[in-house]
């Protein structure tokens, strides 16, 4: 009885999480433009998607901004973590507090304040301002995931490497960096997804003619969202899903091979 209840509960959760995505995927194959009517099965929207330069440019912008901003944020965040380990306890906790605030802060406040800052500094709005903003809100996420790794780090190994005659840089990349790597990677991925997802901050800091997917979809509100967007969302979802499956499959296969 208890297991049945458990299964139903899980099934419900999965249903509520994935039903919307399922509907979106079904609609992306709908010949008719309206969600109210099934006009027959078609690949039309997928073909139109790849011919629609504006959507493709928005997709390219989104990926480029996500990649570059998370890379830069990862570097800055990691460096900040290294610097913080050398600090006194008090300074460290103050700095941690400062980096935590933007994460808790509402996006709209961050967005508007960044916009005002750029205006007052006379910076031209464009790709650059979006990138700067994304780096800004990504850094705390990197610090958040690298910092715990940093605490587990054994300082003696680094000192031992120095004692054995390696240069500090060499010691860092051979001894410290490999230990930090899992934290850095997860920080990078987190920053990447945050940047990919962002709408509000991008909306306030974007320049003329530069659109990411989220701002592009939003401008379509007046005339209704085009089914090409359903097709694109389906493709993105399937890509992410297959990546996840691949990542989760590979260790199992290795084990089998070992046996």
């Amino acid at each position, binding site marked *: 009885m208890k297991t049945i209840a458990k299964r139903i509960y899980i099934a419900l959760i999965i249903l509520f999480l994935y039903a919307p995505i399922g509907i979106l995927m079904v609609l992306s194959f709908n010949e008719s433009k309206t969600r*109210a*009517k099934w006009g027959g099965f078609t690949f039309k929207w997928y073909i139109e998607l790849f011919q629609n330069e504006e959507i493709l440019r928005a997709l390219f912008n989104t990926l480029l901004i996500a990649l570059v901003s998370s890379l830069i944020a990862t570097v800055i965040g990691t460096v900040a973590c290294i610097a913080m380990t050398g600090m006194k306890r008090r300074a460290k906790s103050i700095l941690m507090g400062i980096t935590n605030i933007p994460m808790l802060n509402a996006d709209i406040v961050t967005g508007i304040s960044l916009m005002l800052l750029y205006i007052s500094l006379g910076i031209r709005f464009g790709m650059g301002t979006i990138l700067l903003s994304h780096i800004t809100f990504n850094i705390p996420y990197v610090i958040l995931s690298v910092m715990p790794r940093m605490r587990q780090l054994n300082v003696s190994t680094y000192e031992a490497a120095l004692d054995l005659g390696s240069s500090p840089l060499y010691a860092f990349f051979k001894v410290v960096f490999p230990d930090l790597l899992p934290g850095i990677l997860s920080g990078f991925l987190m920053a990447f997804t945050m940047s990919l997802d962002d709408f509000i901050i991008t909306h306030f800091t974007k320049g*003329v003619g530069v659109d990411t997917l989220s701002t592009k979809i939003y401008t379509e509100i007046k005339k209704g969202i085009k089914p090409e967007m359903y097709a694109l969302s389906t493709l993105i979802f399937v890509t992410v899903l297959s990546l996840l499956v691949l990542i989760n499959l590979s260790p199992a296969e290795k084990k089998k091979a070992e046996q």
Partner: protein
Amino acid sequence: MKKHRIYHIRQTIVALALLLPVALCGCASDKDASRQVIVYNWGEYIDPETIRMFEEESGIKVIYDEFETNESMYPKVESGAVAYDIACPSDYMISRMIQNGMLSEIDYDKMPNAKKNIGAQYYEQSRGFDPENKYAIPYCWGTVGILYNKTMVDEPITRWAQLWDEKYADNILMQDSVRDAFMVAEKLSGNSMNTLDAEELEAAKNMLIKQKPLVQAYVVDQVRDKMIGGEAAIGVIYSGEAIYTQKENPDLVYVIPEEGTNVWIDSWVILKNAPNKENAEKFIDFMCREDIALMNFEYITYSTPNVAARELIEEEDIRNSEIAFPDLSQYDNLETYVYLGEDGDYLYNELWKEVKAY
């Protein structure tokens, strides 16, 4: 000694990391500002092909940006973060921009197509918000009316009053926007939809409250899909959507209610501090050319004020469609929204809140 070295390395990394975004930022600046025009328009409100054609014919680069509501467009233009040349706001927002001195006067001599092709009746209608036709050139227009499903009602719907008929309880879709909702109630009582009279507004509010139990939902763009799917019998809708919904579901009928309604006009305007005013004039005039206006009409499907373009429409039933091109002179109770001022907006919003919270 060693401690020092690692400190230096750290410093260099930090400095590089801080400089990188600034360097990237620098790349984004423009090459040739004089050969461009910056256009701010509604999303999906132009055939992208026409922009390409303009660039090819004039050699002017179009930087194209999109907004989703008049209210989100206004602060972006006002903040001056980007110096736009052209925008395409709706009627009441244009009157607000005129009042605040944000627009630049149109020189019709430089825009022969705008002078020649745009119908006189649309300039006439524009006087509601632009009294001397000095600032705005109509681009798209339409009416607000009733869309009904003839299989779900007993008699033809012709009046706003029928939205208060208890027969249609739970089968009515109203627009979820202050001005459109109050327009229905005010027109029904024979008042102006731009009224600021406290008594008239109070009456309109009470009517909307009275209607509320009959309304299935207050919607924005879901009205299209809901009407096509037969989820409601009657809906308040923009005429531009009506032709599309009829194509999907032939049972739907669009009417302009007898009590009169709102005529909305989205128009091109040139902003006061437009850096490329000459290019802006060329762009707007190009968009008024009949073949280009026709392409845009076919892409957007909202009524075009371009008379010459209308003549070129091949399908006769669309060219003569009463929905897309109603004869404005036949009605004497059509109005266009004007800006009510901050106090007016506040008053309407407060009353609307009372309706929604009732």
